[in-house]
């Protein structure tokens, strides 16, 4: 529930959106929960999907139009009386591309969480954000059982531009999530500052 001041007024309140993208089980909800001032909420986006005619197993299937919903966890962080941040956890795999236009519409930037056991889960998201010019940073989530990959290898595997920050993180650790979001915010500051004519 809103924690902004009680009385309706003429004040304009700005809401900004950030996206935390990544494959299944990579820690998106944990990340959202680490930043959010409330327990992460779940919203459902309903969408009409035209089946591409090929199913998951590569077999040709009939073309069908179906309505499905995708549940997304999100959180909120109130900055002050006139500024609120929202963080949405979003699936990064290719089969969710149909919802990304809505997802990034209005978004300031994205943290892509990479699980080095399934780097391919975020290929589609990275390609899409690059194509759309959405600023993003890449957090390589370190699980206990996984070998650490040199960040340069991850950068190469994802085909990232030199300007995209890549760093190790642990989504189970609140401070680590905070630092990842700060990397994104600093990137936005850099971008905005470079746009200002000197």
């Amino acid at each position, binding site marked *: *529930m*809103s*924690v*902004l*001041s*009680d009385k*309706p007024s003429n004040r*304009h*309140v*700005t*809401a*900004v959106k950030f996206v935390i993208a990544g*494959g*299944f089980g990579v820690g*998106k909800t944990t990340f959202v929960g*680490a*930043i959010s001032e409330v327990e992460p*909420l779940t*919203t*459902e*986006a*309903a*969408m*009409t*999907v035209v089946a591409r005619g090929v199913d998951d197993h590569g077999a040709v299937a009939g073309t069908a139009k*179906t*309505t*499905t*919903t*995708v*549940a*997304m*966890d*999100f959180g*909120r*962080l109130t*900055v*002050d009386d006139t*500024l*609120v*941040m*929202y963080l*949405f956890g979003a*699936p990064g*795999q290719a089969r*969710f591309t149909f919802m990304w236009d*809505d997802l990034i519409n*209005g*978004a*300031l930037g994205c943290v892509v969480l990479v699980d080095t056991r399934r780097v391919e889960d975020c290929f589609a998201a990275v390609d899409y954000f690059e194509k759309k010019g959405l600023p993003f940073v890449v957090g390589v989530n370190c699980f206990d059982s996984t070998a650490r990959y040199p960040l340069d290898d991850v950068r190469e595997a994802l085909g990232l531009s030199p300007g995209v920050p890549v760093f190790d993180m642990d989504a189970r650790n609140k401070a680590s999530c*905070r630092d990842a*979001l*700060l990397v994104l*915010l*600093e990137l*936005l*500051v850099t971008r*905005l*500052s470079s746009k*200002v004519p000197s």
Partner: protein
Amino acid sequence: MQDTPRPLGLIRPFILTGGRTSSTRSGLRWETLVETLADRARLAKTTEQRTVLSLAGRPISIAELSAYMHLPTQVVAILVGDLVDMGAIRIHQTDPVEVELSALTRMIERVRAL
């Protein structure tokens, strides 16, 4: 987090919208804030409209309304669009290109304090 799309439940939420699947306010985003205008809560004609106006006593996002009302974001956007047309609610929407350095600085300070 549920990563698998699934069919809508037995009660089709778009019945609440008279079958419409798009809002009169197509620019509404998930994070767009809405706020009930003073003394306009009485304008509600349906239970869902009443719920929206009651939850939006303070600025609240489309996504939060969706979560609290257990309705898809698109259905909430349609309900909100109707309430805007009725003069019961107002929209706080900011074009992301208008987010200034000072706002980013405030966000950084807030996040650092976590």
